[in-house]
């Protein structure tokens, strides 16, 4: 348990550092990430440009740092949006039950049955390019997971004696949901959300790679990889730099999610004893 906690703090510190870099990216970049200098195009990593330059002579290090802002913050925004909407829908359905619940859950089944990326590509295609549209497209397909999770958790504790006791104490439905149900289902939801940050980052980068996310010249890791892929054999650093950045960041968030789960879950599960 203690080792897990240490691990959690270390990972948390690393993630915070990453977030710090993303937040202060404009002040940290050594060069202007958008300044083109064709005479310096496709330079190998070296003294002037630590990670080399791309086809337009833009400094790769600056672009990777700048790109962290776009990629990480859009992933966080996306996860926040789907966690809040999904959990709200799940809370509502689980608590209320009945026909409306079945109806909404069938809709979420449809979303879950559909290959996610295909649907996101379709939505992003209809909405047009742009990082915000990519976030909207991915939010459309990702909320059911949280709705399902929250709903199942609500169903598990809704018949617990403490909920009945709260009702007998004179609390209304809304108060019970927000002061008793929600705090008790939040653990698993937060764990899933943390685990999802990495996945969502990959998907945003994926959409950008396909040209449906961030639009050039905005620095974003997925689109940077996409524009560098034709030069993979001649100047691999153009694709390697953002690729490694995605790899490290996603892994960091996944490790954080795993650790959060290990630390929180064992005590988190609300034990439900059947009443006679």
């Amino acid at each position: 348990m203690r080792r897990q906690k240490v691990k959690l703090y270390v990972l948390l510190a690393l993630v915070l550092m990453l977030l710090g870099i993303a937040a202060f990216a404009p002040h940290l970049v050594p060069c202007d990430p958008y300044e083109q200098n064709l005479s310096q195009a496709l330079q190998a990593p070296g003294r002037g440009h630590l990670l080399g330059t791309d086809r337009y002579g833009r400094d790769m290090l600056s672009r990777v740092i700048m790109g962290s802002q776009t990629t990480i913050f859009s992933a966080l925004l996306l996860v926040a949006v789907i966690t809040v909407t999904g959990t709200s829908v799940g809370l509502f359905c689980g608590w209320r039950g009945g026909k409306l619940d079945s109806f909404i859950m069938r809709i979420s089944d449809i979303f879950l049955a559909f290959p996610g990326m295909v649907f996101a590509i379709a939505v992003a295609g209809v909405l047009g390019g742009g990082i915000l549209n990519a976030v909207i497209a991915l939010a459309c397909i990702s909320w059911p997971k949280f709705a399902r999770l929250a709903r199942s958790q609500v169903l598990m504790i809704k018949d617990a004696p403490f909920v009945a006791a709260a009702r007998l104490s004179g609390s209304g439905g809304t108060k019970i949901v927000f002061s008793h149900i929600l705090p008790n289902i939040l653990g698993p939801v937060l764990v899933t959300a943390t685990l999802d940050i990495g996945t969502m980052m990959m998907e945003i980068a994926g959409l950008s790679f396909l040209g449906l996310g961030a639009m050039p010249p905005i620095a974003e890791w997925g689109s940077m990889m996409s524009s560098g892929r034709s030069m993979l054999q001649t100047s691999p650093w153009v694709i390697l730099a953002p690729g490694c950045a995605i790899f490290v960041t996603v892994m960091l968030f996944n490790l954080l999610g795993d650790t959060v789960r290990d630390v929180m879950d064992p005590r988190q599960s609300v034990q439900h004893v059947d009443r006679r």
Partner: protein
Amino acid sequence: MREILEVLDVKKTYYKGKQPFMAVNGLSFSVGEGECLGLVGESGCGKSTAARIITGLEKPDSGSIRLEGREIREAGRKEWKRIYSRVQMVFQTPQDSFDPRQKLEDGIREALCNQGMKKREAQVRIRELLEMTELEAEYAGRYPHQVSGGQCQRAAIARALAVSPKLLICDEATSALDVTVQAQIVELLKKLQRDTQMSYLLISHDLALVQAMCDRVLVMYQGKIIEEGTPDEVIRSPREEYTRILVDSVF
């Protein structure tokens, strides 16, 4: 004796898939003011369902439930809030009857604040309630998993008493506790009845407990009352075959 609660021909059917199961099948009884009524029967005979119906946690299919002469079966939300200041319940599993993420006193405070009490007054009242239920104030500041079953049940009783109810339903309130703690809780319940004059509906499968506490006892079998009398009558000379089996299995 005036009746505080009258239950008349209440029925409730559950469905397991398509299979109907009559949990409560024409249940009728009444609880007098200041009376301690026992409701005994084996597991699954519908005792707990009856308690849940009376407290509005479950809706009956038919029948009538009157509290102090007023029909409460079709009560609206506001009406229930008033009813919950008259009827309270103590649950079987004390630890599960408190929110695991809240301190015990928060649960008690919730009941007080819902009755329109200010936070500071509530704090004073909580101290009174803890004194009444003989729970040291220190324990009330802990979480449910940090106290013993007996302490937790005392807190649950304090919470139920917060609104000064006229009728307290104890749904197997001592079954989950070990024997010595059981005896303490029974003593506490007896003392509270002497002090407050409230009525009890004591749901239990424990005939000894019922004999120790109740003025009158009902035997429930397959969703119905099959026998009624003073505990001594029922235990010494049961009229029904089932009651005899139930009594023999304990003594």
